[in-house]
């Protein structure tokens, strides 16, 4: 039954242009980050590592959180409109499945975005004429950890968009949260702040092979936050009178 709910979610969203944003927006930091790297080659001497920070620093703090905010808000918007909660709550499907299907689609889209960021990074490096070989395993590690950190933001934004019925407010909160994440990371509190976890995972500040905070604490906080936000969302769906809130 879960697969049928996922198929229904896919049907709802397949003709929306929102997914395009995930592919067009990473192009901007890729192009401009590469241009900035090319201008400052006297300062930025570490080839792939320095190019990585140029591509991901602003992306992780300012734009990907806001973008995930848009996507999460968009996933719930359809249900918030036109008394659709009446319909969703009366179909013989557990509400957990509806939430799970939306989460799965968000996770897949974020995964595609991460792969796309990786492809753009590889192409940019080739265009810069790097002599070092492409660190494939390292980049996969950065992207995978970034995906995990990004999923924490995603489930938080899904919770926000479920509770706050406005489309734009959660996006604004995501932008401010991303900015606060930058401050939290600068203070050394990035691990404890959900909006900073994506940048921590992707090593956006310093492109090290190892996580500065250690792999175990990173996994612990991303998974704990993720489970907490999922639980809160399910509790809200279970307890709140969704249809009456329209």
């Amino acid at each position: 039954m879960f697969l049928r709910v996922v198929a229904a979610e896919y049907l709802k969203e397949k003709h929306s242009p929102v997914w395009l944003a995930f592919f067009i927006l990473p192009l901007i930091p890729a192009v401009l980050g590469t241009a900035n790297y090319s201008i400052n080659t006297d300062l930025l001497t570490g080839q792939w590592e320095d190019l990585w920070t140029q591509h991901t620093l602003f992306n992780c703090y300012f734009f990907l959180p806001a973008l995930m905010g848009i996507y999460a808000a968009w996933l719930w918007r359809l249900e918030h409109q036109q008394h659709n909660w009446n319909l969703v709550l009366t179909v013989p499907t557990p509400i957990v499945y509806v939430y799970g299907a939306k989460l799965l689609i968000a996770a897949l889209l974020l995964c595609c975005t991460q792969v796309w960021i990786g492809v753009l990074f590889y192409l940019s490096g080739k265009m810069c004429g790097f002599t070092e070989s492409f660190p494939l395993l390292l980049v996969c590690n950065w992207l995978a950890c970034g995906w995990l950190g990004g999923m924490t933001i995603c489930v938080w934004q899904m919770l926000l968009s479920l509770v706050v019925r406005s489309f734009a407010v959660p996006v604004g909160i995501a932008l401010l949260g991303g900015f606060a994440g930058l401050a939290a990371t600068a203070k050394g509190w990035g691990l404890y702040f959900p909006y900073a976890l994506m940048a921590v995972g992707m090593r956006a500040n310093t492109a090290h092979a190892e996580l500065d905070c250690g792999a175990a604490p990173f996994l612990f906080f991303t998974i704990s936050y993720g489970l907490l936000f999922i639980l809160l969302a399910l509790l809200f769906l279970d307890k709140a009178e969704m249809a009456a809130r329209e």
Partner: protein
Amino acid sequence: MSMKLWNTLQLEFFKLRGRMLWLLPVLLLLLQAAWMWWGMKSMSHQEIIQGWQHYLYQLPVLNAIMLPVLMAVMGSRIADIEHKGQMLKLLYTVEERGYVLLAKLLCGGWYLLWILLGQLGTMLAIGMYKGFYPPVPWGYFACYILFTFLTSFCIYLVQLLISLLIKNQAISLIVGIAGSFCGLFSLFLNITPVNKLILWSYYSQLFLCGMNWDRAGRNTEMYWVAPNWGSFLLLAAGFLVTLWIGWRLLERKEC
């Protein structure tokens, strides 16, 4: 202001009652104030001497990142109330479309003005507390408010038009994020002819301070930059053209 426009504007504020549109601007101001306070705590003596210039250099950078998305959010919220329940259809039977656009524009401008005055107040409060060297550059502050207001107001106009013309609010917010991206990178890549065409880059084009960085001594020296009235006038002309095009588009749009 004609009576009709005044009434429409009053109705706009009436519609926004209880929607807490002020919440995100207040959060933005708090975040920026925290950022300035934090930066102030680690200022060297040289930086305190040039404190006002430091803030007039840093704030446009923060604005280039944050204000475009905030403008997109505000534009979306102000326009989206009309999309719900086909309100636009009803509204256009009792109000002229142009007046609706102007009223929504002025309504957002009012909030924007308070954001900028809040920034100015924060700057002055921190500067006085820390003892930034006098005189307070009132002329530059006035230019800062004027330039930032016009840039943000233009962005808000574009976002409002997109939000009114396209029902799917995700589109306007994506445009806001993409614009913010371009504005941010224009701070690093100053390609003048290209930047003139990018609305979001005017935060950096209208800088009132410049910075010399001595890499060896790790010192920064700030200097005043003469207000760029040429870019300002170009932006003002762009605003009027966009308003005219938007007005026409709105009048022709089928609800």
